[in-house]
């Protein structure tokens, strides 16, 4: 066998390119194991998603449709996925370590009595053994995990840990439409409403994040950061200190008790770099630190640092970017 499944998440049929991101690493792993990379898509109607999954490289798509799957509901999705897993016996299943990926993988793990490797930042074969790397203890250590006995091996992967696969027209793939014996009466829950957040950019998906900490000194500091963030197309993050001071809502918090993010660019303003904060952002590709204190730990992990008062530096940066971007 050796097939690698990738769970494609969506919300009521709507996807983002990142929904398909794991098809890239999935394909690599499948080739190394002599299997196929297959997309697992569950929803009310999934034709479009199945088609896109093939464009992103899926060789097979297991498509499960039905009204019962309109909203993501962990219990019925789990039940349905378990039936397919038992029928086709995949070797590995990859999920994103989002709320949906975590819910579904943990439901499957509980039902099938298998282990999970959660929030992997790297997955590879070494001497034919599948190894997964997780960041532990605030990212100060990398822990390599194997999961030799379990089938399937369930892995949730930190969003953006791997390169996006290329999307190509005209790729060939087989769509296997499945129906399973799952109905509304199997669900113990009903989604009655979805309220879109006032925060326009999803931190976890953002390519650029501008984040503020205690060094802002006052809630109004976030107005300045917001202006800067809007200018360069960034999402707005915050340290725990800023959230706990009541300067900005919790949904902006990055760190151990907040969100774990991996943007291409992370700009930390007035953030000293406590381990709790670093835990949530240290795997960002490029880190910029702006802080008054030259000894702040954030400088140790920063790609670029500016020692200075952010209330002088940020307005100057805004001026520079406005000129360079022609805005």
């Amino acid at each position, binding site marked *: 066998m050796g097939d690698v499944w990738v769970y494609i998440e969506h919300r009521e049929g709507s996807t983002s390119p990142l929904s398909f991101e794991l098809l890239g690493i999935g394909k690599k792993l499948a080739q190394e194991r002599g299997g196929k990379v297959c997309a697992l898509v569950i929803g009310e109607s999934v034709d479009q998603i199945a088609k896109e999954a093939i464009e992103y490289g899926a060789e097979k798509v297991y498509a499960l449709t039905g009204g019962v799957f309109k909203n993501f509901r962990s219990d019925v999705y789990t039940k349905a996925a378990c039936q397919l897993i038992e029928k086709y016996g995949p070797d590995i299943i990859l999920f994103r370590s989002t709320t949906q990926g975590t819910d579904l993988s*943990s439901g499957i793990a509980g039902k099938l*009595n298998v282990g999970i490797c*959660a929030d992997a930042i790297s997955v590879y074969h070494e001497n034919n053994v599948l190894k997964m790397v997780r960041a532990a203890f605030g990212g100060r250590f990398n822990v390599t*995990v194997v999961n030799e006995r*379990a089938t399937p091996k369930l892995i949730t992967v930190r969003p953006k840990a791997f390169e996006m696969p290329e999307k190509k027209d005209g790729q060939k793939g087989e769509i296997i439409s499945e129906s399973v014996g799952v109905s509304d009466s199997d669900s113990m*829950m009903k989604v009655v409403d*979805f*309220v879109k957040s006032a925060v326009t950019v*999803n931190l976890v*998906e953002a390519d650029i994040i501008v984040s503020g900490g205690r060094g802002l000194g006052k809630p109004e500091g976030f107005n300045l950061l917001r202006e800067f963030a809007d200018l360069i197309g960034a999402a707005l993050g915050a340290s725990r200190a800023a959230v706990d001071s009541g300067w900005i809502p919790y949904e902006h918090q990055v760190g151990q008790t907040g969100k774990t993010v991996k943007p291409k660019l992370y700009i930390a303003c007035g953030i000293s770099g406590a381990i709790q904060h670093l835990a949530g952002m240290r795997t960002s590709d490029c880190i910029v630190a702006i802080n008054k204190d030259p000894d702040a730990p954030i400088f140790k992990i920063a790609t670029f640092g500016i020692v200075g008062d952010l209330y002088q530096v940020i307005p100057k940066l805004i001026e520079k970017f406005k000129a360079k971007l022609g805005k």
Partner: protein
Amino acid sequence: MKVVVCVKQVPDTEAEIKWDVEKGVLKRDSMDPITNPFDEFAVEEALLTREKYDCEIYAISMGPERAQEVLRNALALGVNGVYHILDPQLSGSDTFGTAYALAKAIMKIGDVDIVFMGRQSTDGNTGVVPGEVAAILGYTPLTYVSKIREIDFQGKRIVVERAIEGGFEVVEAKLPAVVSVIKGINEPRLPNLMGIRRAAKMEIPKWTCDDLGLDKDKVGLSASSTRVVEISVPPPKAQGEILKGDLDEVAEQLASRLLDLKIIK
């Protein structure tokens, strides 16, 4: 009407992290143990639920001898009872083994309507135990809960808000349920002196694998399907650069450097 709250003892990462660089392992023993920060919100939510609906609260924890400290803290806050799942055979359990032991303890308590848990621990950070416990027990999995709107213990019904990517969804569900909570759902209270004194004298009941009727093939290090094979210090990032010059110069340098990355458009 019973609720259970699961609490975990974790190393206090607020304090200085001490680690053995040579061996590449964390000196857990040298760090102060605390209640997992997310579990404090779970305990508080259980207390608020009791204030509103008059239920009983049982706190459970699985962990070594000194994990009883987090249960003592729960007692100081006024929970009705605690159980410490303590057995050397449980040591090294992976998330499934842990979830299975917790599920069996919840079954032993019996007639439980809601199991409150934190969304994840700050040491293991997997966030999968609530979903696994729910799947093992056949309870409704309600994860990432940011608000409880309504509970109807008689009608076995609950309405919650779940914080998911891009917003929150309102979910109406059947009890029993596992409710994992996020930070911000409430403001956890601190135990008062009287509570601390009372809790200090209380006996903490212990449950072993046999007490829970655990299948030993499912718990402990030998049963874990996931196994740690290596702990390493991640390669250091390339030495960063502190930009030098006056305000205008550093801003100019940074803006150009960042634009060169072609991320900002």
